[in-house]
């Protein structure tokens, strides 16, 4: 692919994205507008994440892509191949070996370390969007730090269901200032957002927003004193590696509706199995 620039994007576009990333890091949780480009993959399929990755990757990086925690889902494969081709970067499935990890919907189980960058694909960056569809209004609410609507919504959940009925894309408050959408990660992953050693960058292509969490940033999931935030997952062990601390996918394995639970993070699960851990469904 010699007809395209390194990492596909032209240098001027990369500079524009890089400037947005720096402002995002300086104002954690604030959504920086950026002139998202049309990418050779559809909006909604990770174009924001791809643009951010393209702006941060160097030829010496090792790149990992996960979708739903897995390296082998088709869209993860497609994005990984794109950067192999356009940036010539080394790729890996091992979380600890990667320097840049692009993800959709999960944070790896293994704690990330300094020197790593986690790039999230974000569909709807505005945490208030489903409460107020107008961008002009939500922008005002952020500027005035007016988040009452969000608390009302969460509280209505409690009065109707006895619990906050948000299980993914669970809103967080960053450094006591901006309410932020952590992208549609399960709320199980919310606990990993704060005080992370790696840099976290969020890219929303279609919605033209970039935002960021520097390392060791304070991130608090919204809750109430009498209804504290609770990270949850299926109450099972991984059938393959026996892990009790990882987020699980539920699989239907026979016509009778038989179930099995396995780690959503395929690298985590495989590493545990390689180390000799065995779940009840493993061969």
């Amino acid at each position: 692919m010699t007809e395209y620039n390194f990492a596909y994007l032209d240098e001027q576009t990369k500079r524009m994205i890089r400037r947005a990333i720096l402002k995002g890091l300086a104002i954690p949780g604030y959504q920086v507008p950026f002139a998202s480009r049309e990418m050779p993959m559809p909006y909604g399929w990770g174009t924001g994440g791809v643009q951010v990755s393209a702006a941060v990757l160097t030829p010496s990086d090792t790149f990992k892509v996960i979708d739903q925690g897995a390296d082998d889902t088709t869209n993860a494969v497609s994005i990984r191949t794109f950067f192999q081709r356009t940036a010539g970067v080394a790729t890996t499935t091992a979380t600890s070996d990667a320097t840049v990890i692009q993800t959709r919907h999960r944070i790896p189980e293994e704690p990330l370390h300094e020197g790593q960058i986690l790039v999230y694909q974000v569909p709807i960056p505005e945490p208030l969007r489903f409460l107020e569809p107008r961008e002009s209004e939500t922008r005002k609410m952020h500027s005035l730090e007016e988040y009452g609507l969000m608390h009302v919504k969460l509280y209505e959940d409690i009065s109707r269901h006895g619990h906050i009925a948000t299980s993914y894309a669970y809103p967080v408050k960053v450094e006591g200032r901006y309410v932020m959408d952590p992208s549609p990660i399960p709320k199980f992953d919310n606990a990993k957002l704060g005080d992370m050693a790696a840099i976290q960058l969020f890219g929303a292509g279609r919605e033209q927003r970039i935002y960021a969490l520097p390392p060791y940033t304070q991130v608090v999931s919204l809750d109430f004193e009498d209804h504290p935030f609770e990270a949850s997952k299926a109450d099972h062990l991984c059938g393959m590696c026996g892990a009790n601390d990882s987020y699980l996918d539920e699989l239907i394995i026979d016509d009778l509706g038989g179930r099995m639970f396995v780690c959503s993070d395929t690298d985590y699960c495989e590493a545990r199995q390689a180390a000799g851990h065995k779940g009840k469904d493993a061969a």
Partner: protein
Amino acid sequence: MYVAVKGGERAIENAHAWLAEERRGNTDVAELSIAQIREQLSLAVNRVMAEGSLYDPDLAALAIKQARGDMIEAIFLIRAYRTTLPRFGASEPVDTGIMACDRRISATFKDLPGGQVLGPTFDYTHRLLDFKLAADGDVPKAPSRDAETGTVPHVTEFLNREGLIEEAPHNDTPPPDLTREPLEMPADRALRLQALTRADEGFTLGLAYSTQRGYGRNHAFVGELRIGSVPVEMDIPELGFAVEIGEVTLTECETVNQFTGSKTEPPQFTRGYGLVFGQTERKAISMALVDRALRWEELGEDNVGAPAQDAEFVLYHADNIQATGFLEHIKLPHYVDFQSELELVRKLRREAGAQQVQEAAE
């Protein structure tokens, strides 16, 4: 025994190979050439250029071929290509007054300087399938006459002499560039027009139609619709003057709309404007109606809550590449999120069940 599914890469490669085969179809049938698409499916080519925001009939034809005739897919190919092109500069504004018109009609005046020119239109064709086209056949040559020379004045200029229509003052401010800056509200008219000219034809048509049915009605007359080619000039700093770098075919629609006025200001017609690449008149007329509906605020009209009056709604949903991408992304796996919902619903049901049991016991 469960085995994690592997081989996504091979699945993708195989899917692409199959797609290529399907695209070609039965190899006993001659393959379409780009020239055939460009010449014989020219309105499809025009739409791809208009919504792809790139004037290049050959590339648009290639995109249509590659996309198997899926117009939005073809537009997407053009957009993705367009973003990678370096920018050498901006042209001078084109002058539609010197357009070499293939078609030029006014619904507001029976006759006018420059005349009514029907041009190559479907308008009065009877929509009867022409089975002669199913067989190969030569087309008899259409009658022709010498082209008119000179400028073709705009209808609105005649109204303007009497002060009957609002002024459209000349403005040299460079318009914002939607493709280089994030869309921001409120959007001025130049930005709205820019978004509308590349907006999805179907969406724009639906909105325009809704204004005609009363959702933000603006009583539009087609003051003028003209289709033809205009020269494109670019200022070359090294030369110190503008030179013609090519020609583009455009469709321009100016609507004359319901009048405004008050006790202090005499009534005046207002304007809607549409300008689109290629022969794309349905889109240009739709654009003019939606443009006019979006101008309610500056013209001091009421916002009746019509979708076509809502700039934020219109501009954020008019782009078919954004829309189709997000719509179709729900095909991608979402099982992590679904699992978290599943757990939550199970938990809520367990608790609701326990509560019912307890209430029954009490």
